[in-house]
């Protein structure tokens, strides 16, 4: 069976994050928490952030959704953990551009496995899945200010 066009979307690394999510769970109550839904499809991601002196000391996520939304959340936590807040927000912006197809590769920023989601840009119906966790993270940090 050939799955050529699907392989660009569901890359091995994405399915690995989906099946073995990193940084999955909750953080102590003093963490910033924000839940975001994708109301059209029922995906729900809750992002927990521990920020000290503009540094993301810890990040975890919970929720339910499709492979793309959960893998993206897992990848995001790896990418932003230990990063300065402004770097994390810049990454989020870059990631959005990557999803919208405004850029097709990352130049100097290292966003880790998240780059593997680039194939999503060819599936417009799934872009919202991929950006859900990032949007929740952005909103959580706004709330914290």
């Amino acid at each position, binding site marked *: 069976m050939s799955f050529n066009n699907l392989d660009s979307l569901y890359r091995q690394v994405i399915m690995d994050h989906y099946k073995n999510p990193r940084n999955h769970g909750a953080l102590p109550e003093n963490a910033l928490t924000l839940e975001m839904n994708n109301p059209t*499809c029922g995906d729900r991601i809750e992002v927990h952030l521990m920020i000290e002196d503009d540094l993301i000391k810890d990040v975890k996520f919970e929720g339910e959704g499709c492979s793309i939304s959960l893998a993206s959340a897992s990848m995001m936590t790896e990418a932003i953990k230990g990063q300065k807040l402004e770097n994390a927000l810049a990454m989020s912006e870059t990631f959005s551009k990557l999803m919208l197809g405004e850029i097709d590769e990352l130049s100097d920023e290292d966003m880790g496995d998240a780059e593997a989601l680039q194939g999503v840009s060819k599936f417009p119906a799934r872009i919202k899945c991929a950006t859900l966790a990032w949007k929740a993270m952005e909103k959580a940090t706004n709330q914290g200010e």
Partner: protein
Amino acid sequence: MDIQTIRADFPLLDQEIHGHPLVYLDSAATAQKPIQVIEAVNGYYRLNNANVHRGVHTIGTRATEQYEGARDRVQQFINAKHREEIIFTRGTTTAINIVAMSYGNQNLTPDDEIVITQMEHHSNIIPWQQLSKRTGATLKYIPMEADGTISLAEVETTITSKTKIVAITHVSNVLGTINPIKEIAEIAHKHGAVLLVDGAQGVPHLKVDVQDLDCDFYAFSGHKMCAPTGIGVLYGKKSLLEAMEPVEFGGEMIDFVDLYDSTWKELPWKFEGGTPIIAGAVGLKAAIDYLEDIGLDQIALHEKELVDYGLEQIKTIEGIEVYGPTERAGLITFNLTDVHPHDTATVLDTEGIAVRAGHHCAQPLMKWLDVTATARASFYLYNTKHDVDRFIAGLKKTKEFFTNVF
């Protein structure tokens, strides 16, 4: 009923998606449009477009005749007693909201009850939640049976003398359950309540006779029955509609306008504020002509054949859960074990097969099913057994992809 002739009427179906001939299995979301409907709307704009009910000129008269002619056609189609019982709306949602805002606001008090079910589409839940908040009336749910049906015994115990409005779907957009409307109407009336039926999934697939059902209100959308989007119908019994206040005020719906007060037109126009959906009504009439020409009974039979075949086939795939009762309308809602429905829908899409994935605007029902989302394949008059075969093959491929590739 010759499917190939029917398919030839639907230009959209004749295309390739990702290199495969399109299999459209999302008619419960919106149906495709036959050339007869497209041409009717086209012809209206090319020849007869004018505003209605005001033109002294010839074109204005033609537009009015077409618009009001569509009303007569709808009346006949659902067998309403009077033509003024047919109100054109934007769709089912608007129709239900008119009843909740008008009838509901005028008649409900904090002592009263509104009764619905957990299988309702959001459009038949939220207007009642809001009405309950506005008036203090209690919102109650008729419990569902394990197979996704409603038992009349539960209807009997849930509806009480305090119940003023019962609102229930004719056909569930997720489970395919066909509810016993006539029997529920009888129970509602025995307690002095009115019955509103959400017919969005009913009218496109079943022969509906509102007098026989004896429902008080019946709401449906054109776009799910081959008509354009943006046109729908609220049917209501004349005596009820006459006593109801309009909810939209402005042009078209007035009789006399004074500086500080105004009076309303008669039925049905008092509920049709603003320039009406003329082209939509023309399209709806063409869709009714089209469907009745084939025969609603024939269409229902064809859908039953497809859904029975589909259910039989889908059960041969291991690790698949199908929701809803055996006796059902033409749709199959399901989940593949360990594959999220979005992922299922994406893989099927790459095979040219369009299905719906998500909560289907029925979050309370998803809760009842204890799932966050499901996938749904829905059939209509233009689908074939071959479509079902492609769908089943696509599901097998999806399963193969997610179990063996990773």
